[in-house]
């Protein structure tokens, strides 16, 4: 009996020591050990990246598979962002999720359902340097204030401009507008009615990815869009109304055409638009292919520089098998290594989410050769994001509607922001 009792105490002590130790020393990477007794672990990983950019990602998966023999990743293209959202939704409902994936709005599909597993792993893993990622980037991967995904292929809005049109309008093509006022004046100088039929044929300024750009302007004016902890919209604050007023001024003073955002890209490529604000992901497609001399610059500053973050994230879906989850995490960690992120960035133009990537020689060379990417990459230091929340999609479509009210229906800025704020509040309340 006594012997048994002692054995039990010793056993308990050992258990306590082992776990106690690992608790005291959280950064013990030994905990994330892959069980290889049953051969290599197979995992399934979806990705919403297509075309030549998708090829780059596929190449990374192959590289990972051939670099080691413990984990085999099957990469599966899951459609574009919108379709991936449908595929993930269906898989979530029927519990047929893959091990992980590069998906849009990742936190909605993970954190919302209490899945913060990737954060657990990152905290346990001494090798994973979370501090190397930009703070704004981590916010983009949060739900309810807690990290639940690893941001991956990031883009931010960039100001593209047509140097030829600048010259024709007597503007200096090497000094693009750097403030809101300059933006207004520059754009006004470019807008022209060439054939005199009362309809403008060349416009100074237009935006694509409109909702996103409007958020950029809000942020530049010191507006935080939404108080995420209480889910209170902040559009009606003075900074929000000022932003909307500036937007209205751009329309009223013929710097920007009303309601033509969906053709902004066509206008720009056709040489009918001086300045276009759009995602940095376009740089790779346009560079060296336009008929005019193309250049890119930071978004002009309001009270300060600011841009919102966009793009997809790496999500981990717990499979019920700890070993598979660890393997998935190891693959995600591998994707996040500076060297591999550098390969993605250099070949696609996506902005790396962590600082160490910029130290990679390949990236340095790349930025030297293509100054337009330099703009996008450097701008990341001003990038920030709010945490993901359920009504995010609703908020975006409401922003679009509010801008239409200003542009097409002639709403005053404060009335439009009032409307936007009230609608969003109603939506949030309806879901509670």
């Amino acid at each position, binding site marked *: 009996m006594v012997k048994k009792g002692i054995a039990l105490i010793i056993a308990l002590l050992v258990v306590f020591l082992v776990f106690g130790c690992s608790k005291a020393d959280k950064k013990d990477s030994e905990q994330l050990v892959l069980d290889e007794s049953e051969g290599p672990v197979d995992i399934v990983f979806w990705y919403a990246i297509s075309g030549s950019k998708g090829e780059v990602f596929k190449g990374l998966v192959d590289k990972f598979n051939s670099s080691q023999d413990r984990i085999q990743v099957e990469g599966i293209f899951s459609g574009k962002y919108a379709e991936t959202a449908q595929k993930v939704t269906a898989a979530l409902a029927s519990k*047929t999720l893959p091990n992980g994936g590069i998906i849009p709005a990742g936190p909605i599909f993970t954190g919302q359902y209490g899945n913060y597993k990737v954060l657990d792993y990152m905290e346990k893993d001494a090798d994973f340097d979370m501090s190397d990622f930009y703070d704004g980037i981590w916010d983009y991967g949060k739900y309810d204030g807690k990290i639940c995904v690893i941001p991956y292929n990031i883009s931010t809005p960039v100001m593209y401009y047509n140097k030829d049109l600048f010259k024709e309008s007597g503007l200096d093509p090497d000094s693009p507008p750097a403030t809101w006022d300059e933006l207004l004046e520059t754009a006004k100088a470019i807008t022209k009615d060439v054939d005199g039929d009362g309809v403008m044929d060349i416009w100074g300024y237009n935006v694509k990815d409109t909702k996103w750009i409007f958020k950029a302007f809000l942020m530049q004016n010191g507006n935080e869009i939404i108080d995420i902890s209480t889910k209170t919209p902040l559009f009606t604050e003075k900074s929000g109304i000022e932003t909307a007023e500036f937007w209205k001024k751009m329309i009223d003073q013929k710097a920007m055409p009303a309601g033509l955002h969906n053709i902004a890209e066509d206008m720009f490529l056709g040489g009918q638009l001086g300045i276009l604000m759009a995602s940095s992901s376009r740089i790779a497609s346009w560079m060296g292919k336009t008929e005019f001399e193309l250049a890119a610059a930071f978004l002009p500053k309001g009270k300060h520089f600011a841009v919102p973050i966009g793009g997809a994230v790496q999500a981990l879906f717990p499979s019920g098998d700890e070993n598979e989850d660890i393997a998935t995490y190891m693959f995600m960690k591998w994707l996040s290594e500076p060297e591999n992120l550098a390969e993605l960035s250099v070949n696609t133009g996506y902005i790396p989410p962590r600082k160490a990537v910029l130290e990679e020689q390949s990236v340095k060379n790349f930025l030297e050769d293509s100054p337009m990417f330099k703009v996008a990459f450097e701008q990341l230091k001003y990038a920030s994001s709010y945490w993901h929340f359920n009504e995010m999609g609703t908020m975006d479509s409401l922003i679009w509607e509010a801008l239409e009210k200003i542009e097409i229906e002639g709403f005053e800025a404060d009335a439009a922001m009032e409307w936007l704020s009230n609608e969003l509040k109603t939506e949030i309340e309806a879901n509670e």
Partner: protein
Amino acid sequence: MKTKNKLTYVILILSLGALVYPFIWMMLTAFKPDSDLYVYPPLFLPRTWHFENFTRVFELIPFARYYMNNAFVTAIGVVCQVGISILAAYPLARLRFPLKNAIFTFVLLTMLMPFVVTMIPTFMIVAEFRWVDTYKGIIIPLLFNGFSIIFLRQFFLAIPKDLEDSAKLDGCSYLRILINVIIPNTKEGISTITLFAFLTWWRQYLWPLIVINSTKIRTLPIGLKYLLSDGGKEYNILMAASVMAIIPVIIVYMILEKQFIKSITFTGIKG
């Protein structure tokens, strides 16, 4: 009569341009290099003919594999769908049995709910059957097609009763009547619905995307979607692949079109 025919030609030829134009545009785009795509207004003719777009398709996706998968799914899907639709349409059109109207209404009701919402519950059922990522999972849930059942029923309804009656007098069974009388007399209807079924199956996109995971059984439309980068405008490769993808559709159309004409000349119904 003569002037009337002339008017017919004028109307037909005028509509022609509008109808063919996008098709030609698509063909020409398939031959444009990237740089020709960023010119506005778009170029009609490529500045240099760029045949590499076609080979690029094969580099980007396992085109032949997807093509075969698509052909397989389409063949099975079309044959089964048209087969069970003919079977169902016959009694619904020409036989008497209890609950006939109820069943017809039921078929109609199934068509009223948009797929966007039934998709997720349907997928949950398929997952319950463990059919995710299988050919079964792609094909079977889509075999029931209210459109083709109602379509065939309408055609079966239009057959003159005396044809059927004489067969009945000869002592034919119902199955015999279906095979010997109904089907031969509605060839136009059946080839039309086959054409429609072919089109639908060949281009099936959203459902296969949701159900299929592995490259092994992936179908062509999903592959086509992969060819265009997110937000990109490099349509040339997509168009090259689309041109290759619609060739079978045109061939099937031409075969079935011949079928129309053959049946007409054989029976001597129409000049």
